[in-house]
């Protein structure tokens, strides 16, 4: 009796969460999947005439268009390649950073983590604005490189692939560092001492204790960075060139410029599918590794 009452109470408490998730997540995503199966408005004319989509129709035309379009293949390929590359770069930078932070005193560690999170709590656009100011042809980075004599004339650090890379790395790095810090903090420091006592050198201690034990955290950090990298929108838009379009950028274009909503929806569905496959694959690999461990 009491069980049933508390079960009812708990569902009542969950009502706001359920309402929010259903109203703002489940139903919109389901609607988007349905939208991708509508016939397109087709008229690409900056809002002049034509509908955004034809309600009530059922067709796979949007997906057929995507399959047939070499342009979309290129965009998708760049998006995936970029996501993987940016995730690798982030992990490579974040790992030593997180390792250095994990060895600080508690106060210094808190300060360092605060410094890393701060850009994440600021507006994305503020960070991008700051970066664009820094990286411009007449900006401080070029000025510094010129002064140091590394280069003779200003190099282009913006509106090309390098710009997108720098921007996206800046935006993802805080997450990667945080996740790795958590993973490294979980490692018992006594293990390192024990390894030293058993005669392991610094390199061996790092590879066989610290790195080995942080591998699951490393995998998580890589996957999360990958997901954020694949979803890149603001940096390719503002810091890249028209040659570096991601799926996100193209979705926004289909929505607001081509006004072909079924196509934008279909592109979103494809991207979600790819991300789910990546996350599912990652989770599967981890489960497999764990099973091997316990055996």
């Amino acid at each position: 009796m009491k069980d049933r009452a508390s079960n009812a109470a708990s569902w009542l408490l969950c009502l706001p969460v359920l309402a929010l998730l259903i109203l703002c997540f489940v139903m919109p995503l389901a609607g988007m999947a349905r939208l991708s199966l509508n016939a397109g408005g087709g008229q690409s004319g900056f809002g002049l005439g034509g509908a955004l989509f034809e309600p009530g129709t059922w067709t796979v035309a949007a997906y057929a268009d995507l399959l047939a379009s070499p342009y979309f293949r290129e965009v998708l390929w760049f998006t995936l390649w970029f996501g993987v590359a940016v995730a690798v770069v982030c992990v490579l930078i974040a790992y030593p950073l997180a390792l250095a932070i994990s060895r600080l005193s508690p106060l210094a560690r808190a300060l360092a983590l605060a410094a890393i999170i701060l850009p994440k709590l600021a507006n994305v656009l503020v960070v991008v604005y700051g970066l664009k100011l820094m990286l411009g042809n007449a900006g401080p980075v070029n000025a510094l490189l010129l002064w140091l004599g590394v280069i003779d004339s200003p190099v282009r650090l913006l509106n090309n692939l390098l710009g997108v890379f720098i921007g996206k790395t800046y935006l993802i790095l805080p997450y990667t560092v945080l996740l790795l810090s958590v993973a490294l903090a979980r490692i018992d420091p006594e293990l390192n001492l024990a390894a030293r006592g058993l005669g392991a050198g610094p390199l061996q201690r790092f590879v066989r204790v610290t790195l080995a034990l942080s591998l699951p955290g490393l995998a998580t950090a890589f996957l999360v960075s990958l997901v954020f990298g694949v979803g890149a929108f603001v940096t390719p838009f503002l810091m890249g060139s028209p040659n570096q379009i991601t799926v996100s950028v193209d979705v926004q274009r289909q929505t607001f410029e081509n006004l072909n909503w079924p196509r934008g929806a279909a592109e979103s569905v494809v991207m979600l599918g790819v991300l789910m496959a990546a996350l599912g694959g990652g989770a599967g690999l981890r489960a497999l590794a764990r099973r091997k461990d316990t055996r």
Partner: protein
Amino acid sequence: MRYARFALIAVLAVIIWPLIYAVWLSFTPGTLLEPPVGQWSLRWYAQFFADARWVNGLQNSLVIAGMSVGVTTLAGTGLALAVVRYRLRGAGLLSAAVMLPLFTPHVVLGMALLPFMRQIGLWGHGLSIALAHSLIGLPVVYLLIRDALADADPDLEPAARGLGATPITVFWRVTCPLMAPAIAAGALTAFILSLNEFVIALFLATPSIETLPKVIWPNLRYTLTPIVAAASAISLAVTLVGLGGAALIWRGWRR
């Protein structure tokens, strides 16, 4: 080891520097994108507050963030209570579902929300943006409150009942005070996240209801003007005040 520490400080400085540089530049007296050296001026701030579009953007952002705080606090507290205190069946599933929007590219969220909000007639209303922002803030609020509840001594509530308190009294006098600091810290975090969220507003905002990031956006695409630096500094200032508040509450609670 000393080199490692020096390198760490250098890397942290590089991470923070673009933000500091933008704020520094906002005080320039000229129209060029050069940070002021001798002469500082509040000219761009004056221009920000003289332009109705910027001021409206700031106001809308603050109102939407406020609404989002209400939604996330209500939803997050409810879920945390259900999971920790009532041992909800299916809690794991629901907790995971709450995290999902974090891993959905924001453009996909926008693409999904725009047609839906248009259909149910919420498009162009600040509430649609606030609800969507709540998806982003909810995980943080929920995790904070859940951990606070899980850390609290589970015997406190039965003890209060044993001393003759009614369930409602127990809730108000025991459970609520236990959650309050986490709720406050979560609310401030949700406020900051909503204030700074951009992509969702890009899809859901209409010219009649633009958030501050949405007003900044076209200025970043075409030309960079110092007024964006002033807008950046203002939104950073609001964020830092919120963060300071959250940190104070957190410290007071841990003591």
